[in-house]
C-alpha cells in the first residue's frame, strides 16, 4: 500500500500530530541505532583492521576475500539455476500429467506431490545427499543439492501452475479442444503458456526462495562452495562473526534484490491482459490467489 487509506485526513491538527509521531519514532529508531553502534564501538567492532580485508585494496587479503565471495555467488547461482531449470521442466510435466489423468489415475501422483510439499527442504537435501550414496549413486555434492532442491521445488511449481490453469477461463481449453487439438496439445500450447504468465509473480518469488535455499548446502554437505560455505573462509580472513555474517547477508540480499528487480522487469514485459493491454499484476494479490487455490500442506514462503 503506497498510500495508506488509514491515514488521518490531512487537517492541520492531524498533520501536526503525524509530524510529532514521526519525529518521536524517528528519534527512537535513531537512538536504538546509536546505542547499538556505541556498543559495537566499545567492543572494538569498528576497528579498521577488522574491515580492511574487505574495504582496503592495500591489504594483502583484500583480493582473496572478494575472490572467495565471487566464487560463492557463482556456485550459489549455478546450483539455483540448475534447480530452477529442472524444477520448471518437471513441474510443468507433473501439472500436465495430473490434469490429464482421471480422478482415480491421478491419486498416486497427488499423494506424492502432497508428501513432497509437506516435507522440509533440509530433510530432502539430506535424503539426496545421504540415501543416494547408500544406493551407490556417486555424484558431486553440487548435484545432491540440486536434486534435493528439485525434489521439493518441482512439486511446489507444479502446484503454482495448477492454480494458474484453474484460474484460466474455461473457454480457453474448450476452444483448443474445439479446433481439434488433443488434451495434451491444449494443455501445453494453450493453457500452460497463459498459466505461466498469470502465475509469474508467484513463480518468481519461488525462484528467489530457491536461491535462498541453496544456503542449506552449507550446513549439510561438505562440497559445493556456495555462499554460506564460503563464510567459513571469509571468517578466516575477518576472524569475526559480526563482520563475516554481515558481509554474507549483504551479498545474499544484493543478489536476491537484483534477481527480484530483473524478475519485475520480465514480469512487466511478459504479463498481458486478455485484451492485449499490458497489466501489472499485484504481487500480493496474485500470491494470495495462488495460496487460496492451493491450500494444503505446501508453503508459499519457503526458507
Amino acid at each position, binding site marked *: *500500500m503506497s498510500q495508506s487509506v488509514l491515514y488521518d*485526513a490531512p487537517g492541520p491538527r492531524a498533520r501536526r500530530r503525524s509530524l510529532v509521531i514521526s519525529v518521536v519514532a524517528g528519534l527512537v529508531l535513531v537512538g536504538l541505532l546509536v546505542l547499538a553502534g556505541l556498543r559495537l564501538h566499545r567492543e572494538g567492532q569498528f576497528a579498521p583492521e577488522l574491515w580492511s580485508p574487505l574495504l582496503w585494496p592495500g591489504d594483502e587479503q583484500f583480493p582473496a576475500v572478494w575472490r572467495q565471495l565471487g566464487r560463492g555467488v557463482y556456485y550459489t547461482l549455478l546450483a539455483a539455476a540448475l534447480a530452477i531449470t529442472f524444477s520448471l521442466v518437471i513441474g510443468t510435466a507433473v501439472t500436465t500429467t495430473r490434469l490429464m489423468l482421471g480422478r482415480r489415475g491421478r491419486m498416486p501422483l497427488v499423494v506424492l506431490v502432497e508428501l513432497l510439499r509437506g516435507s522440509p527442504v*533440509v530433510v530432502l537435501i*539430506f535424503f539426496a545427499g545421504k540415501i543416494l550414496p547408500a544406493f551407490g549413486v556417486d555424484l558431486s555434492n553440487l548435484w545432491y543439492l540440486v536434486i534435493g532442491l528439485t525434489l521439493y521445488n518441482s512439486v511446489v511449481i507444479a502446484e503454482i501452475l495448477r492454480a494458474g490453469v484453474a484460474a484460466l477461463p474455461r473457454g480457453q481449453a474448450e476452444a483448443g479442444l474445439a479446433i481439434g487439438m488433443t488434451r495434451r496439445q491444449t494443455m501445453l500450447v494453450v493453457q500452460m503458456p497463459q498459466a505461466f504468465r498469470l502465475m509469474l509473480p508467484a513463480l518468481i518469488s519461488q525462484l528467489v526462495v530457491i536461491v535462498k535455499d541453496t544456503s542449506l548446502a552449507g550446513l549439510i554437505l561438505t562440497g559445493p562452495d556456495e555462499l554460506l560455505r564460503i563464510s567459513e573462509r571469509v571468517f578466516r580472513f575477518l576472524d569475526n562473526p*559480526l563482520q563475516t*555474517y554481515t558481509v554474507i547477508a549483504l551479498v545474499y540480499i544484493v543478489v536476491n534484490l537484483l534477481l527480484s528487480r530483473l524478475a519485475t522487469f520480465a514480469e512487466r514485459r511478459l504479463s498481458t491482459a486478455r485484451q492485449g493491454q499490458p497489466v501489472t499484476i499485484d504481487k500480493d*494479490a496474485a500470491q494470495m490467489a495462488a495460496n487460496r487455490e492451493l491450500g494444503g500442506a505446501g508453503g508459499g514462503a519457503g526458507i
Partner: protein
Amino acid sequence: MSVLVDNFDLFVGGFLRSLEIIAYALVGSLVLGTLLAVLRVSPVPPLQRFAAFYVGIVRNSPLTVMLFVTAFVLPELGFNAPFFWLGILGLVLYTAGFVCEAIRAGINAVPTGQAEAARSIGLTFGQTLQEVVMPQALRSVVPPLGSVVIAMMKNSAVLGVFGVGQDLLSVGNRLTSAQGFAVTPVLFGVLLGYLAITLPTGALLSVVERKVAILR
C-alpha cells in the same frame, strides 16, 4: 526398519522437541508479524519505512544466515541466551517478515471504502484498524498465513541442523552419523515425523479457511 522401533522413544522425544520449538516460534512470529504489519500501514512514515526495510532484508536473505546472526553474532554483542532460545529467536525474526507481508496483503484486500467509512464516522486510526479493517483482513488472510505457518514448521528443521536441541532432524542425524544406523529408515522416520506435523495442519487450515471465508 527396526531402527525406528528400537529408538522409538528417541524419535518421540525429537518430535515433541520440534513441536515445542514450533509452538514458541508460532506465537512469537504471529505477534511480531502483526506488529510489523500495523507499522507498515500506520500513518507514520518512519515506522512504515522501518518495517518495509526489515521485511525487505528478511525476505531476501536465507534463514540460515539469520540463524548464524542470532546464534553467533548476538552472543558476541553481549546478548547471551541458551542456544535453544537463540535459534527460536532467529526463526521468529525470520518468519515475522513473511507474516507481516501476508497480513498486509489481507489489509490491502479490504475495500478502501471500509476504512474511509470508518474514518468518516470519526474512528481513529487505531479504532479503524482494530474494529473494521483487521477483522476482515485476518479472515481473508487465513490461506497465505497458513502457508507461512506451514513453511515455518518445515523451516524448524533447519534449527535441527544447527544442533539447537534434540529435535527431530538432529535425532535422526545423531542416529545415522554417531551410532552408524542405516540412513534410509532413519531419514524416513524423520520425514514421517515432519509430515505428521505439516499434513494435518494443512487439512486443519483448509477447514478453518472454509469456515471464516468472506464472500465478496
